[in-house]
């Protein structure tokens, strides 16, 4: 089963290992990222970063769109991890049965982004994808770890028009 769908452009990192995996009792991480999936160095760096008790696979967006049902129907607690809301939108479109919630964690600053929270920056294209998710009745919320403040996109979206 998919326990958490999360955008985090650092993919597997300290916060993910120390908090997210434990907080959601994650047994398997499915990373969906074209760059990482097609670069052997990046792939090995991120697979190396996975704690030994956790399983992990790295898929391209197309591979994920073709094979996600396997992870939805599986009994393991799965974390779907991707860099961008654009990828999330594609997955929600392909699999309407997904739990209609997208967690946005750290997404780093880029020159054409706006600061949504201290840790998440989005381009206008990414904000557009998030708005499309809202229209599809997917709850989109910003949160780093479960004990920190939650910011609902619905509550702040007007500030970023």
């Amino acid at each position: 089963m998919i326990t958490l769908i999360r955008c985090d452009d650092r993919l597997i990192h300290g916060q993910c290992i120390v908090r997210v995996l434990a907080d959601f009792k994650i047994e398997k991480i499915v990373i969906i990222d074209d760059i990482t999936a097609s670069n052997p160095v990046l792939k090995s760096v991120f697979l190396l970063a996975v704690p030994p008790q956790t399983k992990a696979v790295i898929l391209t967006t197309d591979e994920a769109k073709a094979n996600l049902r396997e992870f939805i129907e599986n009994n393991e607690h799965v974390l779907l991890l991707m860099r961008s809301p654009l990828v999330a939108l594609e997955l929600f479109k392909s699999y309407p049965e997904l739990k209609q919630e997208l967690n946005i964690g750290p997404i780093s600053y880029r020159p054409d982004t706006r600061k949504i929270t201290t840790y998440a920056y989005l381009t206008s294209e990414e904000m557009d994808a998030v708005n499309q998710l809202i229209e599809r009745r997917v709850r989109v919320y910003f949160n780093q770890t479960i004990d920190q403040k939650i910011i609902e996109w619905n509550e702040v979206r007007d500030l970023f028009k």
Partner: protein
Amino acid sequence: MATTEQNETLGILVCTHSSLADSLKQAIEMLMGPQENFETLGLYEGGDVFSLCEEIKKQVGNMHTKKNLVFTDLFGASPSNAAAMSLVDIDAVIITGVNLPMLAEVLTLRGQQQDLNDLVIDIVNKGKDSIRTITKEMLSKG
């Protein structure tokens, strides 16, 4: 000051979350005096792993040292992952879980002619062995 000639000294870069690396440098210099070929880098909120990787390559490159050690704070975390990515382009060994005793060890030993692999083993052992517990009971034993 900068030279294109390769420096024989072992280059040291400490790369961590936030300002820990700077603070570790300050702390070790308080014990051992000012150090050269000892650089620091921090990952801050909003920072990304690819930019950090580029920074690591730049910092190590600027030292012009033939061999380098990159110390990171947490295995599997972004500073460590960025350092791992940088290994394609720089000549370095990464040691994760940096602590002050490890830095004291490397700064003491890096001037000596020692095989890098042996030095790495020494540093890792120093880091592990320096983790001790002190309890009240130990005080009464004189």
